[in-house]
Each structure stands twice: as C-alpha cells, then as structure tokens.
C-alpha cells in the first residue's frame, strides 16, 4: 500500500513536470513581445526594463528560467508555488496569495453544484432505468439532451433574466461588496451559478446512471437475487445500483477535481472572482507566473483527484484490490 502511494506521488510530480514544461514552452518561448518591457509598465526606460528583466530572471538561460519554476512543483509547503518565482508580473503579489484568496469561490461553486447535480441526475437515471420507455424515462432523457446541449453562457443569462431580473427570486450576479464567500452563499448569490453549472453534469450523470443500471440489471447475479426471494427494491438497490454506481463514482471524482480548478464561463457570467477567470485575465496580461501557477495548481488537483478516485474504486470493487 505504501509503495503504491509512493508510486502515485512520483507520478503526480511527473505529470506536474510535463504540464509545467509544456506551459512554459507555450507561454514563454512562443508568444511575441518582451515580458520585461510589459512588466516595467508604460513609462519605462531602458534602465527600468533592464531592472525588470533581472528581477524576473529573464536574463538567465531558458533552462535555468524553467528550473526556477520547476522548483515550485514539489507539492510541499515552502516549495509549492514558492513566492520568489511565482510572483505576478502584473499586480506584484505572490501568485499563491491570489490563488488561495480565490479558491473559496471555486470550492463553494464546485461543492454546491456537485450536490445539485447528484441530487438531480442520479434519481432521474435510476427511475428512467427502472421504468424504461415510460413517460418518465422519455422526459428524463429529453431533459438530459437539453442539459448537455444548451450552452452555459446562454443558460446563465436566460436564468439571470428570468429569476433575478423578472422574478426577483435570487440576488444578482457577483458577491456583494465586503461579504465573505460563505455569507454570500447563504445570501443566495450562488444559487443560479450552482444550477447553471450543474445542469450539464446532471444530464450526463442521468444518462450514465440509466445506461449502467440497465446493463447491470441484465447480469446473472440479479437473476440469482430474485431467485433467492429478495424484494424487488433490494434487488435494484443493493444488487443493481451498487454495481452500476461504481464507474459513476470514478467519474464524479474526476469531475470535482477538474471543477476545483475553476469554471470559466460560470465565473465570468456571474461575476465570481474565481481561479478560472483569474487564469484568463493572466493570459491576457501575459502574466506568465500567474498562468504557470494556476496551471500547476489545477493539475495538482486533478492528479490528486485521480489518485483518490482509484483508492475509492478499490474500496468499492473487491476484485481490484489484489492487483
């Protein structure tokens, strides 16, 4: 078990290394323009530009520049996204500060949406599978189709218009000035973002649950369960759903991992100060350390989510444990 974990941690570092290397290539070596000049600001003189260049380490050879960033990959406090290298070229604060201050928004967004999409998607999927070809099934699958097809940016504005502007049921977009993220959540600022963000996931999960459950219910052990004289409810839930949900759990872990890195459209439309919006801003401003920092941070979450999901899967499916 320990060896397994060590291997996974090494794998994590490898992935971060590759991701950061590619990011470095894409953002430092490829774009035109001189970051030092940009960092020096509008009223720059050759001296300030030169000073900026040295301060940002841009005078050193490429691989040395990369290595400075690479040191920040090690997932250990003190090393991870260290303050010297990961320092914003635009607002001159450490990247980690920016990321950590925006993280609560994404955590709230992700967790809330996750609860909503599970509560919506799973029951719809289960009932659709049990009552196949019924009205419920058909409408459930139409809902799924809509949820997956309707773009978030369109849905978001439509919902805002209907539920905020017309019906005054929810507060407007953005977090009111001075409120903490948590208070804002209770205030209702996250309701529409949760619904809009979760719709596509709910739809997808409904479809997957339905398909998995239908397949599971045709397995031989379901026939055995019925032959034993078990109640149909027990057969469906303890025998059928239990097997059907295992791949869903895997998917869920990955989805949460990815979402924690930010949901760009939702954050933008609802004016939420999250990591994804920050990433876009940083790209526009050519703030390379920020881009690098956010990328590394998001990758870290995804790889850790991947690891957790594998552990949970082994917990759920005994056949996997001894390989």
């Amino acid at each position, binding site marked *: 078990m320990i060896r397994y974990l060590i291997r996974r941690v090494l794998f994590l570092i490898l992935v971060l290394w590759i991701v950061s290397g590619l990011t470095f290539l894409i953002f430092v070596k490829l774009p035109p323009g001189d970051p030092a000049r940009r960092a020096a600001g509008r009223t720059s003189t050759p001296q300030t530009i030169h000073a900026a260049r040295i301060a940002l380490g841009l005078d050193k050879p490429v691989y040395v520049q990369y290595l400075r960033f690479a040191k920040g990959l090690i997932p250990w406090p003190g090393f991870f996204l260290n303050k010297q290298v990961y320092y914003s070229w635009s607002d001159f604060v450490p990247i980690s500060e920016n990321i950590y201050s925006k993280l609560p928004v994404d955590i709230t967004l992700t967790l809330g949406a996750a609860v909503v999409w599970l509560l919506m998607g799973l029951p719809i999927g289960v009932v659709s599978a049990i009552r196949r070809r019924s009205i419920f099934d058909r409408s459930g699958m139409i809902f799924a189709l809509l949820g997956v097809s309707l773009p978030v940016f369109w849905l978001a504005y439509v919902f805002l218009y209907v539920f905020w502007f017309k019906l005054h049921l929810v507060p407007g977009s953005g977090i009111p000035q001075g409120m903490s993220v948590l208070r804002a959540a209770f205030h209702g600022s996250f309701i529409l973002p949760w619904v809009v963000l979760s719709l596509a996931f709910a739809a997808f999960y409904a479809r997957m649950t339905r398909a998995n459950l239908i397949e599971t219910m045709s*397995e*031989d*052990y379901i*026939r*055995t*369960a*019925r*032959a*034993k*004289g*078990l*109640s*149909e409810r*027990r057969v469906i839930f303890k*025998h059928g759903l*239990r*097997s059907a949900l295992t791949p869903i759990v895997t998917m869920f872990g990955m989805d949460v991992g990815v979402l924690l890195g930010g949901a760009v459209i939702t954050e933008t439309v609802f004016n939420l100060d999250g990591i994804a919006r920050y990433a876009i801003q940083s790209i526009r401003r050519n703030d390379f350390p920020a881009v690098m920092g956010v990328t590394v941070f998001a990758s870290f979450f995804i790889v850790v989510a991947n690891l957790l999901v594998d552990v949970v899967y082994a917990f*759920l*499916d*005994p*056949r996997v444990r001894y390989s």
Partner: protein
Amino acid sequence: MAEPLLEVKDLKVHFPTEDGLVKAVDGVSFAVSPGETLGVVGESGSGKSVTFLTVLGLINRKSAKVSGQVLFRGQDLLKLPVDELRNVRGSKISMIFQDPMTSLHPYYKVGNQIGEAIRAHQRVSKKEAFSQAVEMLRRVGIPRPQERASQYPHEFSGGMRQRAMIAMALSLNPDLLIADEPTTALDVTVQAQILDLIDRLKQEFDAAVVIITHDLGVVAEHCDDIMVMYAGKPAEYGDRRDIYYAAHHPYTWGLLQSIARLDQEQQERLQPIKGLPPSLIFVPPGCPFHPRCPYVMDVCKVEVPQLLPANGHHASACHLTLEEKDRIFKEEVMARR
C-alpha cells in the same frame, strides 16, 4: 403414487417480438414427486430453461404470454401475487444456474450473500445468518468454511462457487431444487463431484431435484425420471430405464446414437442428428421434429403428436405405433451401441 410436489399442466410461454411470436414453451406437462429427481434434456432453445424460470416467476410477465398451470402443492404459482411468490422463491423452491461466476455478486462476501437469502425468509440477525451460511458451506464440502465465508466470489474456484450456490439454494431447506445446467460451465472432473454432491444433499435435505441439461450422460446416473424436450414441446417422458433401454422417440434415438463412446472400437463416425433445431417463431407444422426425422410419415407433417403414455408413465409424442417404436429401437438403435 405420492401426491406430486410440482405439477405443470400444458404450460405455454410465448414471447411477442418484432420478428414474430417466439413459442419458447409450447404445451409442456410433467410432474415431480417428493424426493425424486427429474432430468430435463434438450438442446439449446428447446425451452427447458424457460419452463423452470416460469415456474419460479422469473420471466418478465410484461414481455411474455404465459398460459397453463403450475401447481406447487396444489397452489397455482402463476396466479399467485408477487409477494407470496417471493416467499416460495428461495425457501420452498430454489434454483441454481449455469455459470456460478456471474451468478454471484462480485462485491459482496459469499457468506453474506448466503446470509441474505436466509434473512429474506427468516427473522435472524446478520451474525446468526452468517454462521448458518458457514455451516451450509461446510455441508457442501468446502474446506475451512469460516474463512471462505468471508471471501469474495472471485477468490473461489469454479467448482467451489457452484458448491456455494448450492449451499445458498439449500440454506432454507426447500422442497424442490432446480439445477439449470449446473455442471456445463465446469471442468469434467468437477462435474462428477457436483452431481454426487447434489445426490447426497438431496437425501440429507429430503428434497426433490430437477436437473436441466443437454448432456445425456449427466442424467443417466443421477435421475429417476427423464423428460426430453424439443422445440418447446415434450418429446418423450419416462423413467431412466425407459429412456435408455426402451426409448420411443426418434429424437431420443438420435441423442442416444450421438453419444461418443470410449469403450467401443472406433469403427464408425459419430452419428449426429441431421439438420438444425427449428426457429421457435416458425415452428414446423405437425410434429416439430419431422424435418429431421428419418422415419417421417405424411401424418407427421400435419398433425401434432400428443404425449401419450404407452405403458405405465412412459410416453412419447410420436405417430409411430408402439410396435414400430420397439422394433426400430431394438434393430437400429441398440445395434449401433
């Protein structure tokens, strides 16, 4: 003769499909007495499995048209409400299936799965049910049953899994055990063990047994009565000696002749039955076997032969006369064996 435990009368199970009406079971009647073993023999698609799945109510009522009677201790199971039928399943009539690997749930321990069967019918605690399960595993001959009960199905070998299934089926002391191709998915050496186990447990638990198989060799040693099925209809019914030493149906003759024998010189090639089993949607008119029958007559193409008893309860659904059947069996079938 003792009051029959299970009496099936003119059972028909038809499935309407897009391609047509599939007559999986088309007029099957038989009886099983307490303590007896009935062997049901037939090819794939003969309707043998569907018959018994219908007895237990495991056929989806919405997709099948079922008619006839299934009398268990005088009660028609087909007319029973679902929850009462559930009481019967597992505790009075149990069924085990062909592939034990896929028939057990991969996520739950074997002991708990057996315990679940017990708790579905008796009010006992989980612990108590588990220890009963351990005892059942011991009785079916699994070594170190305490350890094994805490393991998962994938940790068992094929033969052990089937033993576990048998343990589960017998845990509530049912009156009737239905074994649907119990040995088909197992090694030959293990097959014999499992069949012997079923014989022994049948005595111990005082149960009647139905063994469904396509293997005549299996039935020969372990069954009292045998029913041969073809295309959803019964072809022949009799006790062991009737079928092996005085068979009266051309299909049975064909089956007997196609058995490979180790104790004979390799003179002739194996004699398979010519042709293929018929589609259950477009069943041949008259006797369903007539396209493949070497003794076919005009009447066979038109009139469905009824399962008529000849002497005692030996019956065959064939238009040949009794004398002809006896003669053909002696001269042609026995001669070749």
